[in-house]
């Protein structure tokens, strides 16, 4: 324990010294960040508050159903934190040079584990804490909760909820490392994918948001009473259910029924942490040795794709410079498991979403309900672009790392380098964004008896959104580089990345504000037969293009300027 506090002390000193740097540039940058964070906090608060008001008052959805939606969102949140932690923990616990260094010192394995586990949890969850807290503020202030409610829920419900997810993540990771020594890395990763896929499938089979939306459409407005009979039994064993039930009973003023759910969550989290410590004490060092073996087994001479397009010895139609840049990006991506695994997970989840949403059967011809459904789906699609870009585009320049000297000292136009990265990022995000845009709009095309206007507008918006979001992430990724960080997930969790994500969200809210009016008019034209002029969609479409182009230009300027800086 003495070791732990000793090392923590120096980590805190290092953090404080690097954070509270009193140079003018740092202070100005800090103030800028603070203003942006503040703006985001206010925005998230207002948004969460208004959504709660809209759902409970305008759509008359009811407390129970609203909390079922919250439960589903929390499940997605829990899974995202869990998967993210598995991937980040691998780097933090097994590939960090700090761990190798500490293992040579007389420090117990469990102390090293706790240190890196907390490091990992706090580092990767700072932004999520902020998001969770501001959303909670907006939600809670609708019900008029006192200040201590927010502090209490944050400390005793949401933080334990995320901590529990992180505990599961390291348990799974240590199990993977243990099994890897017997089964091999690829087989274990395949198994892990299978298990997660089945788990997510089962959850959405028994608690399907699409079904829920369809039931709302079918039984509106008497949905609350009807759906209260539908809760599947197994949901009560999931932590997201405990949190949503806690919030639900607090909202109903029934604290006696709410508190046991918080108690269960706290107890399980504490138990999980104790189990993690016991397992780590027994297996952490052994599994670290396994990770070294996995690394060593990869050091055999490489013969992969020697005859393919990607072989550096072959040439294609591209100029030599573009070609080697593309190949370098390709191999750097493919040979870093945390990159392709994470992309694969996101693509699979997107495909599940696309397949589910494409079959959504909307029946209700009420403008408010369908506007909300559309905006939720539209928001999700935009959020997906933001997340993808933050995770894969933002780190693109940072991942050049210290080897960037080889590119910067070569006779290569930096605009060419920037454009190559931009097009690569844009290609991935654009394809997925268009897929989602089509899927989101298909149910609405059906609802409007085959009129494709909304589909075209959705695809048009997806183009501008993906273009702008990729531009923001690449430009700001260059402005806030972390050349010493090799882990892309950690690059995506830096303060600069958080700011970039917030800027992306602000842009997304702006887009929603641009499309909300024409969308309302269009839905009204369908449901109450009001006249709808094409100009109603051309004007916001033009505005969207102008706003996006300006943002793309500004971001490219920031990114290119940052490439001119001293390296």
């Amino acid at each position, binding site marked *: 324990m003495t070791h732990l506090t000793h090392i923590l002390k120096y980590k805190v000193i290092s953090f404080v010294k690097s954070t509270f740097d009193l140079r003018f540039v740092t202070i100005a940058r800090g103030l800028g960040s603070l203003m942006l964070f503040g703006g985001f906090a206010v925005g998230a608060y207002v948004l969460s508050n208004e959504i709660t008001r809209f759902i409970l008052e305008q759509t008359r959805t009811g407390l129970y159903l609203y909390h079922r939606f919250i439960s589903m969102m929390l499940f997605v949140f829990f899974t995202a934190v869990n998967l993210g932690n598995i991937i980040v923990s691998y780097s933090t616990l097994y590939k960090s040079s700090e761990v190798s260094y500490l293992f040579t010192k007389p420090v117990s394995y469990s102390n090293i584990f706790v240190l890196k586990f907390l490091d990992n949890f706090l580092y990767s969850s700072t932004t999520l804490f902020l998001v969770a807290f501001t959303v909670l503020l907006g939600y809670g202030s609708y019900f008029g909760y006192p200040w201590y409610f927010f502090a209490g829920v944050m400390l005793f419900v949401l933080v334990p909820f995320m901590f529990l997810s992180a505990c599961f993540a390291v348990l799974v990771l240590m199990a993977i490392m243990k099994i890897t020594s017997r089964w091999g890395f690829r087989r274990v990763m395949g198994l892990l994918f299978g298990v997660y896929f089945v788990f997510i499938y089962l959850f959405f089979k028994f608690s399907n948001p699409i079904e829920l939306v369809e039931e709302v459409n079918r039984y509106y407005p008497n949905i609350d009473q009807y759906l209260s009979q539908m809760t599947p039994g197994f949901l009560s064993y999931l932590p997201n259910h405990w949190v949503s039930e806690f919030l639900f009973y607090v909202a109903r003023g029934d604290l006696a029924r709410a508190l046991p759910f918080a108690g269960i969550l706290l107890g399980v989290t504490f138990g999980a942490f104790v189990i993690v410590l016991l397992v780590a004490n027994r297996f952490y060092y052994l599994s670290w040795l396994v990770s070294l073996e996995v690394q060593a087994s990869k050091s055999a001479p490489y013969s992969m794709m020697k005859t393919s397009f990607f072989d*550096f*010895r072959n040439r294609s139609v591209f100029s030599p410079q573009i070609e080697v840049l593309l*190949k370098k990006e390709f191999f750097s991506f493919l*040979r870093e498991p945390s990159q392709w695994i994470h992309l694969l997970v996101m693509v699979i989840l997107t495909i599940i979403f696309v397949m589910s949403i494409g079959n959504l059967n909307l029946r209700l011809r009420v403008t408010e309900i369908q506007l909300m459904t559309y905006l939720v789906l539209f928001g999700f699609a935009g959020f997906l672009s933001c997340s993808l870009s933050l995770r894969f585009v933002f780190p693109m320049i940072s991942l050049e790392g210290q080897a960037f000297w080889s590119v910067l000292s070569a006779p*290569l136009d930096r605009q060419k380098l920037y454009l190559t990265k931009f097009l690569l990022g844009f290609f991935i995000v654009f394809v997925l964004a268009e897929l989602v845009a089509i899927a989101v709009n298909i149910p609405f095309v059906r609802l409007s008896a085959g009129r494709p206007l909304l589909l075209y507008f959705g695809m048009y918006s997806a183009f501008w959104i993906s273009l702008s979001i990729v531009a923001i992430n690449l430009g700001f990724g260059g402005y806030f580089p972390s050349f010493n960080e090799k882990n892309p997930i950690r690059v995506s969790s830096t303060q600069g990345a958080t700011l970039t994500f917030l800027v992306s969200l602000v842009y997304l809210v702006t887009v929603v504000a641009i499309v909300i009016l024409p969308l309302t008019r269009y839905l009204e034209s369908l449901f109450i037969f009001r006249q709808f002029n094409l100009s109603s969609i051309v004007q916001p479409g033009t505005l969207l293009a102008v706003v996006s182009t300006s943002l793309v230009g500004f971001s490219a300027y920031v990114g290119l300027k940052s490439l*001119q800086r001293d390296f």
Partner: protein
Amino acid sequence: MIELRNVTKKFGSFTAVNSLTLQVKAGEFFGFLGPNGAGKTTTIKMMAGLFSPTSGEIVINGHDVVKDHLAAKQTIAYVPDQPFLYDKLTGREFLYFVGGLYKMARGVLHKRIEELIGHFEIGEWVDKRTEDYSQGMRQRITIAAAMIHDPKTLIIDEPMIGLDPRSAKIVRDTLKEQSQKGVSIFMSTHSLPVAEELCDRIGIIKNGKLVFCDTQDKLQVYKQQYDGKFESVFLELTK
């Protein structure tokens, strides 16, 4: 040919390089020495285009490295003090990568890479990922990559770090060979014997200012004023 004219580099209020003026002719081997933090790496990074000078001009082979940086870089090879490579690429892939950046023709590049692999004796591990390389292996790949496009000017920061005796000899011989071929070499080093052995002219920098810049012959004269050792001259000048 390298020309530095009144080059200054400031980081905030700190002046790392102060009005540095010097010239390295074609085929000349110039050794750049100085204590830690004297401004050697900063000077070299400005020449390689990684830092921009606060004031002054750097002209390499007739091209200004700021205004005409692409043309200047086409003629330069830079070897950094720390041989960082792209971890996920193999050594051979890295060589192809660098060759592509210099727009080398495919056939020429194949041939050149095979030559360099043989010359630097790296065939055994050149197809492994560079993340598994030792410091010396990385250094050899970096120097091989620098030679790939037959540069007119070599800018090298601490080339001998981490090299075993055999590799160090290969690198020394290669540098001598290049110099004899007419390549200008600007080498920063902490190793006084290496500088004495290889360089035609030596410059010593202290606190960003050049405190000594002369030929080997003149250096011999200076040495006699002390105890005949270059180390004593260096310590006195950088005191």
